[in-house]
């Protein structure tokens, strides 16, 4: 595979979108968590909720800002490197993205200033309302962008003229076959990512004997959410997989590492797929299990990769391994959740150093899971950019040279590593500082703290 403009453009898009998605993976759940905390404080008046909320609001300020600036890059990527895709598919996908802008981005941005810094300037219910609007904005955003992505995966409601896509039925475009499953699966995934970040942070404090009340509350809340979402995610992932089996069978075959069509397909736990030889080496599998969960019949027939023309297959190794990494992360989340309940029953939840250390180190699990989940589904969609209708190779901007894209990719990489590296550094600083015992400086009414993010003190 030579490094031409096409491959480099794909690399570039993958790079900027993967980096970007790490931020909303955290901030979508965090926005909801803050809204919940603000609501709980409004209703119960318990100070601990306020302290926890103020802490996470500071974290949110930094993370959300990074999410915004990396997000602005995305729509322009479609134009700069994928102009043919833009020309072909705009009539269907661009209005959907525009709705994301109108319903989500403005809503988040409009109420963000109030949330971050308007607590003393507006009544408590209005501040809670702002938190709620930001949270809802992030969910609207998830909705619309996944509508776009899902349509690219399982296109429907359209017609084609001269290779260009035109919408025929907007309801069919939006409620395309994979959207409901992808949406539920992704929302659960981002909430879990936030949950384990909160849990891990709580564990960080508990290990050091700091902020006992806050961290116990956070741990209980996070573990409670995980208890619901971890098992639910298994079901949602399964439903999503079944939908993929039906609509994108070649992707499913790659995920499962199934080369030969047949019955009693094994669940492949580990293997080294070889695309040239069209087989797996060192395969360890449980016979019949894949047929069972894919077709609900051990004797069920599943189509293998060999039944698809080579030029229509995704990169099998990438999809196969990425899928397993995502599953492994879920396994870790399950283990930690079950262990947590076990300890809770023995009243040792907050006092078991090994468990707390595990939770602390488990902060990245959600981020790894979502990244590899996205790799699975996006690499699995290849060689199509609109599955079954437009190939990625036909979508790249014409006349783009490898030199052009190398330059832009290098610049993005340099800037992103520097800026987001700094961001992580400051986030860690904030976590080390922890929730404040009391607000360091109560602003008087005529003092207008106009910088939303200076709620984060430089101490």
């Amino acid at each position, binding site marked *: 595979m030579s490094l031409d403009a096409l491959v480099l453009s794909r690399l570039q898009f993958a790079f900027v979108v993967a980096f970007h998605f790490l931020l909303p993976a955290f901030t979508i759940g965090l926005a909801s968590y803050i809204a919940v905390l603000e609501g709980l404080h409004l209703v119960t008046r318990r100070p601990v909720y306020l302290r926890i909320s103020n802490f996470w609001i500071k974290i949110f300020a930094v993370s959300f800002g990074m999410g915004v600036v990396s997000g602005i890059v995305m729509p322009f990527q479609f134009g*700069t490197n994928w102009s043919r895709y833009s020309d072909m598919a705009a*009539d269907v996908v661009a209005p959907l993205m525009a709705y994301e802008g109108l319903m989500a981005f403005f809503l988040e*941005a409009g109420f963000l200033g*109030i949330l971050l810094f308007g607590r003393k*300037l507006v009544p408590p219910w209005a501040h809670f309302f702002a938190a709620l609007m930001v949270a809802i904005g992030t969910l609207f955003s998830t909705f619309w962008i996944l509508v776009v992505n899902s349509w690219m995966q399982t296109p429907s409601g359209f017609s084609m003229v001269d290779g260009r896509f035109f919408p025929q039925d907007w309801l069919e475009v939006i409620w395309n076959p994979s959207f409901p499953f992808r949406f539920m699966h992704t929302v659960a995934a981002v909430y879990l990512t936030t949950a384990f970040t909160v849990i891990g942070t709580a564990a960080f404090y508990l290990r050091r004997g700091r902020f006992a009340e806050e961290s116990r509350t956070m741990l209980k809340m996070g573990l409670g959410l995980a208890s619901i979402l971890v098992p639910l995610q298994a079901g949602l992932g399964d439903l999503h997989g079944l939908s993929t089996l039906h609509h994108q069978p070649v992707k499913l075959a790659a995920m499962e590492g199934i080369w030969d069509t047949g019955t009693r397909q094994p669940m492949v736990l580990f293997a080294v797929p070889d695309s040239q030889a069209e087989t797996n080496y060192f395969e360890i599998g449980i016979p019949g299990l894949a047929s069972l969960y894919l077709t609900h019949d051990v004797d069920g027939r599943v189509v293998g990769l060999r039944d698809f023309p080579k030029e229509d297959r995704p990169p099998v190794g990438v999809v196969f391994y990425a899928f397993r990494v995502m599953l492994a992360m879920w396994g870790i989340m399950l283990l930690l959740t079950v262990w947590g309940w076990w300890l809770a029953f023995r009243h040792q939840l907050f006092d078991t150093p090994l468990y707390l250390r595990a939770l602390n180190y488990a902060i990245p699990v959600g981020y790894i899971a979502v990244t590899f989940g996205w790799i699975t589904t996006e690499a699995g969609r290849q060689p199509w950019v609109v599955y079954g209708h437009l190939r990625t190779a036909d979508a790249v901007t014409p006349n783009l040279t490898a030199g052009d894209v190398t330059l832009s990719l290098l610049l993005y990489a340099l800037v992103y590593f520097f*800026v987001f590296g700094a961001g992580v550094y400051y986030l860690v600083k904030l976590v080390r500082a922890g929730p404040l015992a009391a607000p360091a400086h109560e602003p008087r009414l005529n003092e207008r703290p106009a910088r*939303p993010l200076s709620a984060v003190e430089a101490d």
Partner: protein
Amino acid sequence: MTIDLVPIWTLILALAVFMYVLLDGFDLGVGILFPFAPDDTSRNLMMDSVAPIWDGNETWLILGGIGLFAAFPLAFAIIIPASYFPILVMLLGLIFRGVAFEFRMKAQRSRFLWDQSFFWGSLIATFAQGIVLGSFVHGYQVQGRHFAGSLFDWFAPFPLMVGVGLVFGYVLLGATWLVTKTEGALQRWARKKARIALYGVLIFIAVVSLWTPMLEPKIAARWFTWPNIAFLAPVPLATLVIAAWLWHSLYSTRETATFFAAMGLFLTGYAGLAISIWPNIVPHTISLWDAASSPKSQAFLLIGTLFLLPIIVMYTGWSYYVFRGKVKGDTGYH
């Protein structure tokens, strides 16, 4: 009977882009003025004046870009790749500007780094936007449905000149914004900077007005033939009147008048641009109608837009209202 949605979308898109230019214009302008501020307290105040609202302001850029993509996709598919490097540079500049707000507050020894990030990010993003504008007015080489020119066409005298002009323009917006939001010594300083910026802006308006017709015969014909001269004369005349009003306000004690007058100058410039390139959205060969998306797409988006835009304006207005008035020094927050 079907309504032609193209003129409606032209208006909406023009409005969205104009909103972006005005709103992000002033906060980018504040960023460009940043290192020239009298002292650190002033710099903090300057940042405080834009920090609660910069995110919402920048969101209009997304609306402009995606709006172009949705309503006039052929234009998007030509203009954006044609502007490959200026857009790349603009996005990187916006990243440095955006994170500077937050990182600067968290930093102690490295605060200087984020001051620079705020300034250079704002300056570079502005210059890059000006280059995109200049290339746009200059026009694009098109073949069929694709951009057929070189990715370095932007590196030419006219686009680079417009880049510099836009820097002066945004500085004018930023300075007049500071005149309305600050007081005392900082406000006096802002007035001085606004006057300098106004000189620059007027020179560039003159240069652009004379140079643009030379780029393309159609434009010269539109402005300089009779009876067009009579109908279009109000635009340059209005420019002169508003410039005079702005000049006068800067030397008086008027505050918000300066900011509105600066916006007025942008409005006349924008009108002049529209008159020059009409009816093309890809200067100078592809018209709005050629570039438009299908009626189903335009209609689908229009319904929601007509409902959502007023709501957006309302809650954005509320946010500005909450953070109204002069910025005060808050030592607890710096």
